[in-house]
């Protein structure tokens, strides 16, 4: 299915004028000609090849497509690529820094926060945002923050544990003596992009 869209996209290109958009994705500026109706999730996956964000329910229910638009998580199946013109987008590909996993990613690995993995990119992007704004969330707060995202494997328990693991890990790292810039942690993350 995923392969069908670019073909249709090319066919439409002959019939309709495209528009030019420029957005900064994971710190890199991209300029492309697109149709106005192109959804952000398809732009990221098909035009930029960033297939980490998953195209799921297409109805803004499941949250597998969650990316950050400027500073906030959004469901990219319900945002046009054109709406991100001139803005910054952050995807799951940006979580690991210099080959080192983000604590949220480590948490999902440590606590078995995924099984099939389809929901995982969206879960992690929302979890990263949560910890940046609420470094020590309760299990209930984590559930609320992730309530717009569906997982059909884990029953959510391990996802909540994964986010808690990341929270505690980051608190430990901060306590351990505020290592220099480049160290993972809520303070540094998401800045300078």
């Amino acid at each position, binding site marked *: 299915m995923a392969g069908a869209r670019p073909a249709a996209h090319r066919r439409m290109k002959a019939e309709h004028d495209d528009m030019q958009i420029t957005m900064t994705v994971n710190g890199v500026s991209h300029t492309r000609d697109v149709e106005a109706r192109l959804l952000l999730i398809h732009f990221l996956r098909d035009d930029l090849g960033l297939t980490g964000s998953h195209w799921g329910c297409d109805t803004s229910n499941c949250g597998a497509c969650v990316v950050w638009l400027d500073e906030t998580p959004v469901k990219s199946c319900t945002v046009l690529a054109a*709406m991100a013109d001139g803005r910054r987008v952050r995807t799951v590909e940006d979580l690991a820094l210099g080959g080192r996993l983000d604590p949220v990613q480590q948490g999902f690995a440590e606590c078995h926060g995924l099984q099939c993995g389809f929901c995982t990119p969206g879960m992690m992007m929302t979890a990263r945002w949560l910890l940046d704004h609420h470094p020590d969330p309760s299990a209930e707060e984590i559930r609320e923050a992730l309530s717009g995202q569906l997982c059909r494997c884990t029953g959510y328990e391990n996802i909540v544990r994964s986010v808690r693991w990341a929270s505690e890990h980051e608190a430990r790292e901060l306590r351990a003596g505020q290592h220099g810039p480049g160290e993972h942690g809520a303070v540094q993350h998401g800045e300078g992009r």
Partner: protein
Amino acid sequence: MQVPAYVEYEKATSVAHALALLDRFGPEARILAGGHSLIPMMKLRLAQPETLIDINGLSELSYITVTAGELRIGALTRHAQLLDSGEAARHFAVLHDAELVIADPVVRNWGTVGGSLCQADPSEDLSAAFAALKATMVIAHPGGTRTVPARDFYTGPYETVVAPGEILTEIRITIRPGGGSAYEKVGRRAGDWPVGAVGSALWLDGGGLDCGGADRGGADRGGLDGGIIADAGIGLTAVGAPHFAAAGAEEFLRGAPATEESFARAGELAAASCQPVSDQRGPADYKRHLACELTIRSLRRALARARTHGGGAPGGAPQDEG
């Protein structure tokens, strides 16, 4: 795979520019705010605009202020911003209550207050909240602005008084002393549309602060003498309430004592005025039951807030009477 049909796209840089674009592209142009209602409708071909006019860059429409004794909410304010607004919660807790249960946190990040209202879904939450608060909608047109009471904003399901060349720009709510408000919703699951929901607002005679030492626990029981109701607003959604309101129940409450008996009667009157339809969310008689019960519950909480906090959410500062 669901994708919108081909559409033209224009980015507005100001309200005046958006109005000029609406004029240029005619009635088949649609304003694109958060798009969380419009884009799904376009995917399903339930909406097929020829041109989208993107107003997401209009920071002039994104604000929550208290001006001239009114809470004013810009139409492009995101749901998450309204939820996070201490100012809004302090004056009208019903808005905070409702925002907590609108869609989910990620949708609230991008969906807008004005977009939700203009979508005019008959189950939309804020429509009931603003009906309860007797809000006023400000609509811009090429010649200036006009105002419309919230209850006259809707002309039918998915239809509003906003004409093709116009834009909803602001929602205004008059701040009055002695007020309290609350929202009660029953949904099938987190983030879902309501099976039924009711927002209530009460304004007590004497400003509501006369019993300054009243403990919230006592008020929550609802059996205590709550004083006389100077004015009441009851907004209902998803239950087929005309204009999202229960005018008969409000009329009954005006001048009545704020007691359980009054609230029970108001609940009955509110339910009787609704015309719910049976659908996948529930049968009509259950929705009518919800209209009654949620009216009572929301009035109870509104009263507790009016007495203990002068109108705002628990923990909020007393409301500005200016």
